[in-house]
């Protein structure tokens, strides 16, 4: 309880990335979630999350695995009802109007759809006419160097390319808020560094507001304006760091080699209080 109070204090006066006062895109206020099913013990997953995210901010969430991060995303995307608390998305209820784009660790491309049809999925559901959505999709695919693969099936692409396609699919419907749930964790290290950089610049270019879940502390520091550290389950926000290295330096790689990087890393590592069994590092 104390921890989450402290967090609320930190975020009571959000400094914003460049010190500019921007309006909130999403506000979580006292969100709680308990899973209860008949015949089983109720599992309290989220104790209390209050979080306020401003326009064009890039916020990362790090926390022990299984603490309830994905559950929080599902609540934001209104796939789950919170047990208590309220969500305000761009000043409205998330279910009416304001839209959330969702991208997960597994790219979730539909194997039976060609790349271009995958990209078009959201537009199709929104009822955009076929000619129009193909035009939009082709534009975006060309822009990210994937035009040659438009008519192929996803299983012919590498993991990195598939995640790029998934990102385009998320962006093309122009959502107000983008949720990324460990989108890089299935990729090899090099692809990851490249994609981090690419995604940050694409999202900035589109003026998107982003929340990223990651278990990679370095990734969180390299990409984010703010990093929220979560406690064990039942989870709450333990601490929020104002990082903003990549915005200041213009690149995630530069952020990784900045002097302040290690300082953030060490404090977040301490906050996470990870118990290491055996000699593994």
């Amino acid at each position: 309880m104390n921890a989450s109070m402290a967090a609320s204090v930190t975020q009571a006066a959000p400094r914003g990335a460049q010190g500019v006062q921007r309006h909130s895109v999403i506000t979580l206020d006292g969100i709680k979630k308990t899973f209860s099913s008949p015949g089983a013990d109720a599992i309290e997953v989220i104790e209390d999350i209050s979080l306020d995210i401003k326009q064009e901010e890039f916020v990362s969430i790090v926390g022990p695995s299984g603490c309830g991060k994905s559950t929080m995303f599902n609540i934001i995307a209104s796939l789950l009802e919170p047990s208590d608390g309220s969500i305000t998305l761009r000043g409205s209820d998330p279910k009416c109007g304001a839209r959330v784009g969702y991208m997960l660790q597994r790219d979730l491309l539909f194997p039976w759809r060609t790349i271009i049809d995958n990209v078009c999925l959201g537009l199709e559901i929104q009822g955009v006419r076929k000619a129009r959505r193909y035009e939009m999709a082709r534009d975006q695919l060309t822009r990210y160097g994937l035009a040659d693969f438009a008519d192929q099936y996803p299983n012919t692409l590498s993991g990195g390319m598939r995640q790029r396609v998934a990102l385009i699919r998320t962006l093309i419907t122009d959502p107000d808020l983008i949720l990324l749930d460990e989108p890089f964790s299935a990729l090899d290290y090099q692809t990851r560094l490249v994609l981090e950089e690419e995604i940050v610049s694409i999202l900035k270019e589109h003026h998107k507001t982003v929340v990223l879940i990651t278990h990679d502390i370095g990734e969180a520091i390299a990409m984010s304006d703010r990093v929220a550290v979560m406690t064990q389950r039942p989870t709450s926000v333990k601490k929020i760091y104002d990082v903003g290295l990549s915005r200041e330096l213009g690149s995630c790689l530069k952020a990784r080699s900045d002097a302040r990087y290690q300082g953030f890393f060490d404090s977040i590592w301490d906050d996470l209080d990870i118990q290491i069994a055996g000699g593994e590092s």
Partner: protein
Amino acid sequence: MSEAQLHTHVIRAGSVKENDEQLAGNTLLTDNLWRGAGLALVIILWQIGVNVGWINPFLMGSPVGIAGEAWRLIQSGQLLNDTIATVYATVVGFLAGSILGSICGLLLWFSRSVARIIDPFMVALNGLPKIALAPMIIIWFGSGMFSKIMLAFVATFVVALLSAYQGTHQIDRNLINLMRSLGASRREVFTKVVAPATLPWIISAFRLNIGFALIAEIGGEFISSDRGLGRMIFVAGNLFNLNVVWVGVIMLMIVAIVLYVIVSQVEKRLLPWEKGHK
């Protein structure tokens, strides 16, 4: 594939497949040569055995005798008529049962409670050897082709239903969440995710059902019928005319193989995205 290729991010689908196909073509040719040679050897040894007197042609038939009977049955047109009758009843029952069963299995996705209620009945029916229903079905529908169609239908319907229904349960929850986060209706989730994701399961049920439909149809013909390959085998068997039995059995094998090839071709058409996998 080398590391270097992986790092270019693209598995060059085209070039890899060409190589594979060439290789596959070569092994296929040699494999088929060996198969042909093996089969010819068995037939020749069988005939020699009969000629020398080691094999009793009355109990086993003989290749020359089988060829003679085949020729006679082809010329009289009986083989063609019986084959058409059997294929017709099998295919109609198989298609009706598999298609309707798949549709029902898919639709069960919409109602968990209906699915839960009928589940034990489906499991019980699935475990039942459908041929046990043959006497009843023949009483109800007569000894003509319609009862054989019904038998093939019953034999394939439950398999298709259960397979499609199980397929709908294997769908990645995240795909459905993704659709919902994009604002899709339940009907859109069904047409854009559930149905295509279940298609491989449906096709594999079709594959199984070829065998089940044939078993039920032939079993029905054994019990009571006026034409068909099953009847031909049954009657010839009672008369100890082993050569005719062999003709019927060989013809049935050909029918089964042709049906398998057709289903495989349909599969390739319907599941173009699975090409790279297998």
